[in-house]
């Protein structure tokens, strides 16, 4: 998504609880539909990991009961299995200290086509919804982040991988020629995960690696080999040519790129630019620096 052109303002909306003293006892429900994702399934028995897309999650939070329900549509855990729609209900949700909507449940029996399917009991079911707002092209838009992870029948560990996620970052750059450090907390990082090619694209908005350097818009690192594992991922590339506006920039050649991260927290990204600027970026869903308005 190459549409971010303005300063990113991210805020977590803490859903206000309806007053328990409301004489009318009015209720509300917040529903999220999440389809821009795919499942990474790790088989504990074989140790192999597989990717399944065409999956959709519908998550509903109800107030004032604090009950939640989740529909997993098109779920598959192995190639032989048909896609199944799961329904999980009667879950409990809460706001954590940062205002993140959280569902945490153990041993939930899903309902499939109206029937409880204990053979698909979901163990350690965890959902976190970051209800973020971002400013894109001067307009305030929602940009929620979903962190979903669960285990099926103590056999299949499922990590929901977003097709793309926006991170804020604290970026430190060391100019190896001059030895002077430079810090930048304004750069934004889009990561796109491609299930078919098992590669990732990184798009850096406002790329700037030195004080006197003009900020570059939308510097992209494309087709970085991606390794997924339960709960996280890693990226690695010995060398690549970044592009800006789809034009290669060989003089900004990137080397020794590596990234390790979890979908729940973020990623530590390292690379070298022009064989001179050593970049170390700490990416996160929610920043802590004042410039990012958290």
């Amino acid at each position: 998504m190459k549409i971010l052109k303005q300063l990113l303002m991210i805020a977590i909306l803490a859903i206000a609880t309806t007053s328990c003293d409301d004489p009318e006892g009015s209720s509300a429900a917040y529903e999220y539909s999440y389809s821009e994702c795919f499942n990474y399934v790790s088989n504990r028995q074989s140790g192999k990991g597989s990717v399944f897309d065409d999956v959709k999650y519908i998550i509903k939070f109800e107030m004032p009961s604090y009950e939640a329900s989740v529909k997993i549509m098109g779920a598959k855990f192995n190639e032989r299995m048909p896609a199944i729609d799961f329904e999980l209900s009667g879950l409990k949700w809460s706001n954590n200290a940062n205002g993140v909507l959280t569902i945490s449940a153990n041993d939930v029996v899903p309902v499939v086509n109206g029937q409880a399917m204990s053979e698909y009991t979901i163990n350690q079911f965890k959902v976190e919804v970051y209800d973020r707002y971002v400013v894109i092209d001067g307009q305030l838009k929602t940009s929620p982040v979903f962190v979903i992870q669960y285990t099926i029948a103590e056999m299949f560990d499922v990590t929901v991988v977003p097709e793309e996620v926006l991170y804020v970052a604290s970026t430190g750059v060391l100019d190896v020629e001059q030895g002077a450090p430079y810090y930048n907390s304004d750069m934004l990082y889009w990561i796109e995960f491609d299930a078919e090619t098992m590669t990732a694209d990184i798009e850096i908005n406002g790329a700037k690696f030195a004080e006197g350097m003009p900020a570059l818009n939308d510097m992209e690192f494309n087709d970085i080999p991606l390794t997924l594992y339960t709960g996280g991922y890693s990226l690695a590339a010995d060398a690549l040519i970044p592009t800006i506006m789809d034009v290669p920039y060989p003089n900004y050649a990137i080397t020794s790129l590596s990234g390790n991260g979890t979908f729940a927290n973020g990623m530590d990204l390292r690379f070298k630019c022009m064989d001179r600027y050593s970049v170390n970026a700490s990416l996160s869903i929610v920043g802590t620096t004042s410039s990012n308005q958290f």
Partner: protein
Amino acid sequence: MRLLRYYILVILSVASLCSNATDGFVSEEELQEITITSMKQMRKNPERGDGMATVLSDSIIARYNIASIKNISNITPNFYQPDYGSRMTSTIYVRGLGARIDQPVVGLNVDNVPILNKDNYDFDLMDISRIEMLRGAQSTLYGRNTMGGLINIYTLSPMKYQGVRFLGEYGNGNSLKTGLSYYEKFDDKLGMSFNGYFTMTDGFFENINNGEKVDTERQGSFRWKTIWRPSQRLSIENVATAQLTRQGGYPYASVATGEINYNDTCFYRRTSIADGLTMKWVGDRFTLSGVTSFQYIDDNMTLDQDFLPLSYFTLTQAKQEWALSQDIVISGTERDYSWLCGLFGFYKRTNMSAPVTFKDYGIDQLIEKHRNDANPHYPIAWDEDTFVLGSDFCMPTYGLAFYHQSAYRLGDFTFTAGIRFDYERTDLDYHSYCNTSYTVYDFTDGVNLYPYKHEPVVIDDYGNLDKSFIEILPKLTASYRLPLKSESSIYASVAKGYKAGGFNTQMFSDVLQQRIMGMMGIGMKYNIDDVVGYDPEKCWTYEVGTHLSSNNNSLSADIAAFYINCRNQQLTVFPDGTTTGRIMTNAGKTRSFGAELSLRYRPTDRLDFVASYGYTNARFVEYYNGKTDFGGNVIPYAPSNTLFASAAYRHPLNWGWIEMISFNVNTKGVGEIYWDEANLVKQPFYMQLGASLRLEHKNYSLDFWGENITSTKFDTFYFVSIGNAFVQRGKPCRYGMTLRLNFETI
């Protein structure tokens, strides 16, 4: 006519409420001339008021050949209007306050009509009868853009003079002025005057690129003034004017070469029409006055923006502006207490088109080179030799204000307090557009260029911005009449002034340039409101002074000291994190202190000595432009000293055809002036010598005059454009003769 009847109906309705006559605020004699100052000042003579003012009479105006406010520069202490660029770029600096862009710090009224646009401040007038320069914050009574002062110009009244006047002047530079006026008083109630004026000059500065003079000018104006007094209590004045200006302008010389040398056309043309209707009704207990004005301006400024013999880019700024204003003042005096209340409103609408045309060299140096330095392996080439960055604007602005002032006389003391509630709203509807393209080439083999990608550059943005301001503008003064036979006093005052906020449309070209660079992946993208919008600038002026006169009025002195505190200074800065582009912002604090002295000595009716001196120490208190901290530096473009001295001698001759001969020698000095915030470049203090010889008869006068007789070399303006420094030199020695014919009917 319907409007006139409405006015009369309103006034008569009010009159019916009046009780027995008492001393009015303005006597019947004052009905001879309705002035904005007499409507709003507590004294008839602003030079003896509770502030510092310079009043130039018609004899002084004729002596120094004053035809515009630019000519009073330096004569009035701490008042400086440099002569550079064109008649649109006129900037006034008073006591360290000034503005090169957008809103002015000094207001201007001509025959009571407020000139709402600074671009229209510079024009010539014939038959000026009086000029008043009020210094210090005048915002309480006069509102927006008067935080440095106020200039009132009054032209000759047909109720004071009747007859025919002719002006013919010729000087070097093939400079010609001619004018013809006719004044008629039909009866005690009705008078009219008609005035036509034309000036031209071939200029003094040559552009070596084409061998032609650049500062040529043709200017013409017409004025029709009507004064009608239907009764002893009611006076109505209407002044209608039309002006045409056609000017070459912009004689900017490169500092590096000393030459004026640019290849694209520069000019300024302006057509303006104005009408002002002033009405005054003097009742038994109060006076009701009103000024209604209409103004229309149609002008076009076109520049070779780089001022080089290279084709970088050109700029055009063409606008049409309509403005209406209405000021209503009611005032009265009861024994020792005088008061006034006023209501002011205005509406102004400006339509502007400001395209920037990038030419081949500019595309190469400012866009392609910048981009290709970042990526020599995939260079770009623009598909056209020129393209246009277009910007169209519509800016409606309106405001409403209510003001009040009370003055109480306690013995020899007078205490005055005033307040103004001022609301203003300004909108900006913009349309930015561009339709061009470039091609990216693959040059990875270092030998051949292969087309890699074709990229259109299309911008078609519409938007709307608006700002509203509410200002409360108080004023307090105290004056004490000294126990002398003459009219002498001392005073102290504190007043708040402000300069209106708004939108600097000239910044749009920066925005669009950054937008294009951003479309190529380089550069910061701006929020337009952050870049072009700015809030009001506010100041507090503290002043003490004295007006002294000798008993026989042969010697008079005006002395003042002032301190000005400015907040939210309107400045251009570089936004955070980038080394390119600029934005408008309220980023600074400044302070200014100084003193002024004006002396006049007339030991006999033949000798007249005038001297004035102004000192200003104006510095930034805070100003960080995103790259450099200029706190403590001198404010650029405002002079720290102004000096004027004049000696005149008149000797009667009874030669029949010459009745009087007059000599005048004068000198004007100004400086030092810093040209940049870093205080690295400056114009030192300089002086110009002037002189004149006048042969006078009751029906004519013939002046032989010279200005800058010793051809002092100085610069009036300095700026940097795309890394190149330019100056405008001061005009060389000028000389000529002026014939005035005056056939006054008895």
